[in-house]
């Protein structure tokens, strides 16, 4: 799965996700990536999210929308909201990760796997890519 989330200079957010799904999938199985609210969501009032992981769990938790809703309705820091929702995924037995950007320009990750192919850049000069946890 690949994904991107962005905040532009006009203050607008967008999210996108694309995937081949799960190796050996059958019966027309669909994961979270194309499901708006599970693997992909964007709302200028809160955040933009793209997810990658064990799709069945991300669908059950409604990960992308859940993170955005928490940010819209509470004062939680974005990293906390993302970590809390990913903890719910883990609690149900799922693994994976999310990327998100906020209207304030934060570009964040949260994942509970040993690695996630990832990168982020901002107008403040941040530009980084990483693979393994702790990098």
């Amino acid at each position, binding site marked *: *799965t*690949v*994904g*991107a*989330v*962005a*905040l*532009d*200079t*006009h203050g*607008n*957010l*967008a*999210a*996108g*996700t*694309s*995937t*081949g*799904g*799960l*190796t*050996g*999938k*059958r019966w027309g199985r*669909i*994961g979270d990536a*194309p*499901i*708006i609210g599970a693997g*992909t969501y*964007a*709302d*200028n009032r809160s955040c*933009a999210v793209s997810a*990658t*992981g064990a*799709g069945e769990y991300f669908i059950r938790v409604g990960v992308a929308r859940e993170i955005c809703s928490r940010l819209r309705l509470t004062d939680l820091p974005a990293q906390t909201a993302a970590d809390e929702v990913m903890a719910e995924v883990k609690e149900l037995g799922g*693994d*994976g990760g999310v*990327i998100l950007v906020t209207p304030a*320009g*934060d*570009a*964040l*990750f949260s994942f509970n*796997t*040993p*690695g*996630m*192919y*990832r*990168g*982020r*850049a*901002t*107008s403040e000069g941040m530009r980084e*890519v990483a*693979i*393994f946890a702790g990098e």
Partner: protein
Amino acid sequence: QQRWSLAIHGGAGVILRENMTPEEEASHKAALAAALDAGSEVLKTGGTALDAVEAVIVRLEDDPQFNAGRGAVFTWDETNELDAAIMDGRTREAGAITGVTAIKNPILLARAVMADGRHVFLSGAGAETFAKDRGIETVDPAYFRTERRLESLKRMKANALSALDVDHKFG
């Protein structure tokens, strides 16, 4: 100038340094950096968040190292079925497609669904017909095939493994 920001991913999972050669690590990082730069360039020059997202994802879909577009994993029947979604935070318009087999860049089709506006989620043959009507580029399904992904499927079948045993990453 207003702030801009961008985050990207190419999948998550049991990705361990000891299972990766230095060359593979460098190659993945270079691909991520190139995609990040493509999106950053759009944003730096005043482009929209949607265009930045598209620029990043098209690049990653075209790279066989990642499980999307060319290089996608195989289904049980040794086909590649692709899914994608895109959403505009300004209007909460969205487009998504699932189960397509001949669309070179599924994210472009998802965006076309969003732009059309009548529906959010199209699937399978219907989505492919919609793509044809919109002039979205198609390819022979063999374009998506990579030997590494086929090997993963064969190992999975031969050893009755799960997808997570044969792939380092999800999605």
